[in-house]
């Protein structure tokens, strides 16, 4: 994969996460809908096992909700790219990693 293509891929993800996600549907998703209809949604509304830093894709402290979601999207794209790249870097076939460093 050429550097240009990698940048294109990340930019595409950033555009989706930053510019489109604030306008995504706010209706409950499939599981939430089923949980509401079958009366068990409140079981999931207790204290979560861990407190996440950016709950519900809204960066805390940002007044404008659309902006808070856009920021969360950008943050998430960077973190998951690093996570996926890092995981792949650890898992890459070790015998080949020495000689196949060239790009593209």
């Amino acid at each position, binding site marked *: *994969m050429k550097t240009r293509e990698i940048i294109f891929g990340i930019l595409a993800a950033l555009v989706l996460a930053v510019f489109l996600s604030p306008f995504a549907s706010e209706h409950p998703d499939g599981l939430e809908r089923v949980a509401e209809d079958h009366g068990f949604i409140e079981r*999931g509304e207790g204290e*979560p096992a861990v407190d996440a830093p*950016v709950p*519900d894709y809204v960066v805390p402290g940002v007044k404008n909700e659309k902006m808070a979601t856009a920021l969360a999207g950008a943050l998430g794209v960077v973190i998951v790219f690093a996570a996926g*790249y890092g995981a792949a870097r650890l898992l890459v076939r070790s015998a080949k990693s020495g000689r*196949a460093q060239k790009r593209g």
Partner: protein
Amino acid sequence: MHIPDGFLSPPVWASGWAVMTAALGWCVKKTHALLEEKMVPLMGVMCAFIFAAQMLNFPILGGTSGHLLGGVLAAVLLGPCPAAVVLASVLVVQCLVFQDGGLTALGANIFNMAIVGTMGGYFIFRLIYKMKSTPKVFLIAVACAAWFSVILAATACAFELALSGTVALTSVFAAMAGVHALIGIGEALITVFVVEFVVKARPDLVYGLKRRGL
């Protein structure tokens, strides 16, 4: 379809962690054996794209929304095992950073979406594409696999909810399958669109086009 804390009973979520660890461990081993250097950035880009696409809930009937799962998209482009690793990475970040899906339920969520949806969906893709390996059948196989991947993951989720005693199996199964049959149409459309784009731009990167066996 991210299960929050509280929906699953301790025996079910603990089993979810156990089964997921075994299955994902196998995928990690397979990925380690197959992963080429040139795929490393693609794994990162795939994670980023699936994360972003999962934020984009689209409305379906009756005040409900759905979003891309991305399992078949990743599996057709990268292969089923690297795809499972990608989906698992996205789910871990969603859980720990964005509280999307509970930590107790993370095992079950990875099992449902990264293993059942992704591997199951890819199996269906292979089944269809192996019958007739033409470009047209390729896209049909991608569409069917994407739709089924959502149904498969939703079914696994329904079973876990029923096993937990949260809700009766027959009613939750019908409800989950019904609503996700609609979400699956969105999944199929988006997956075909993106796969077609990559096939046109870089066919050499598309795992589903070159690999024969499962």
